[in-house]
């Protein structure tokens, strides 16, 4: 078994048993981001082989705060799969996850394929059918979220589940940069944000992703959902918690957690 396969299996097992694993960077001192992306691609290939479908991609580490926390200057990315979708207003059993946190983001649904290099935010807006409010449930298969950049990249950028809500709005009808967002947990405002929190403009994040993935000969496909990056810090979730994100102009999205 190759090392890439071995690490992928470690993460898959952690996901299945809901028992976090040792950070890969602690197992192997020189485990780097390139190797990590190949671990992620191996895990996704394994899931696709067992019948899962890729529904989209997500961009992580788009805020300065998160980048500082991990000591990086670039975002990262992960894959979205059909079994990660939760309906708007739906329930999530905490038993599905290890150590979930919730973030609010703007989702892009593409009508045209985007493949880098050289993709600009304008290309992204032109290729977007509509934007939607979304919640991303991030989760780490690494014990206690003790992640370095390579750990989270290998772990599919700590993707967990995602929820799309609101109403579809064409990107040219709204100012995504200045779109305000209020994030509530159990009816209380926990934080607020604005589109510019994601690298200055959410479309900049999607353009970054299209260009980054071209290094792996991967495209953002027509019809895919792209989660463009958190507009606020991630908030811990427990059974009984209700989360709602309200966005200017595009509506709201909510989810709750059960035992």
């Amino acid at each position, binding site marked *: 078994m190759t090392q890439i396969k071995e690490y992928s299996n470690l993460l898959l097992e952690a996901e299945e048993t809901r028992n976090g694993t040792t950070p890969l960077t602690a197992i192997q001192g020189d485990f780097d981001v390139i190797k990590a992306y190949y671990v992620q691609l191996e895990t996704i290939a394994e899931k696709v082989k067992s019948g899962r479908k890729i529904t989209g991609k997500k961009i992580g580490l788009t805020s300065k705060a998160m980048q500082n926390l991990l000591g990086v200057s670039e975002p990262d990315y992960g894959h979205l799969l059909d079994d990660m979708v939760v309906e708007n207003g739906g329930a999530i059993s905490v038993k599905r996850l290890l150590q979930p946190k919730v973030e609010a983001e703007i989702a892009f649904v593409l009508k045209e394929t985007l493949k880098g290099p050289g993709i600009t935010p304008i290309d992204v807006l032109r290729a977007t059918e509509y934007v939607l409010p979304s919640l991303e449930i991030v989760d780490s298969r690494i014990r206690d979220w003790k992640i370095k950049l390579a750990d989270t990249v290998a772990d599919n950028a700590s993707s967990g589940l995602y929820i799309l809500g609101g109403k579809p709005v064409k990107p040219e009808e709204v100012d995504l940069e200045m779109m305000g967002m209020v994030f509530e947990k159990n009816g209380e405002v926990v934080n607020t944000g604005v*589109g510019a929190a994601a690298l200055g403009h959410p479309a900049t994040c999607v353009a970054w992703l299209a260009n980054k993935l071209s290094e792996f000969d991967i495209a953002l496909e027509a019809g895919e959902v792209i989660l463009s990056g958190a507009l606020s810090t991630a908030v811990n979730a427990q059974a009984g918690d209700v989360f709602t994100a309200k966005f200017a102009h595009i509506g709201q999205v909510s989810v709750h957690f059960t035992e």
Partner: protein
Amino acid sequence: MQGVYKELAEYLVKAETEKYETQRVTADLKSDLTVEEGYLVQEEIVKMKLAEGRKIIGPKMGLTSRAKMTQMNVDEPIYGYVFDYMLIENGGTVHLSDLIHPKVEAEIAFVIGKDIEGPGITGAQVLAATDYVVPALEIIDSRYENFNFTLPDVVADNASTSRVVLGNSLKKPATMDLDLVGVTMSINGEIKELGAGAAVLGHPANSIAMLANMLAKKGDKIRKGDVILSGAITGAVMLADGDQVVGKFDGFQDVTFKVQA
């Protein structure tokens, strides 16, 4: 007893006028100062300024974010007063030599169309009584060393009020969701702070309602024509010589000023 508050007011106004930072009142001068007494000091400051011929533009709210209330261990915001000499025109200049150690934060201001008299005022009533909302940048400048103060201290110090830049674009409040207005504050082209209107007590109008209810406790009210700063949507950022500050508010024109020594 009244003399004590007047003396403390003079102590704070002197620090403001002569632009030096001073020890907080509760450190030594009056260690048992209460919040109520803090407001008595503030009233003396207001009287002094009115006697000098200054005009009140309107009250302003402070400590309206959950983070600040938690930090100060309080469950109610505070208020102070903005005077005419504190206004800087949009695109204008703030001179550091006029101030002590200023910081800037982004807010939404309410231009009041009808008197609002508590108690029992809600955010919806505030919206109905508001002529316009205006984006604003508030420059706060505590007269205390290192912005180090307790709640009664900051109340006595007119809630750190110092300068205000109001935007030029007015909106009718009914035409927008003020809780969802996205805001960024950039200095020299880099976004330093951001947020949305809901950072202010869930909705900026809630802050004005709370002000009406707080004023009612002392038989006072919000007046037609008051321009009221509803509280910071963003964190406060220290200003430095040469800074170009831009506040962007979704649906409004930008509010800007520059900083010079």
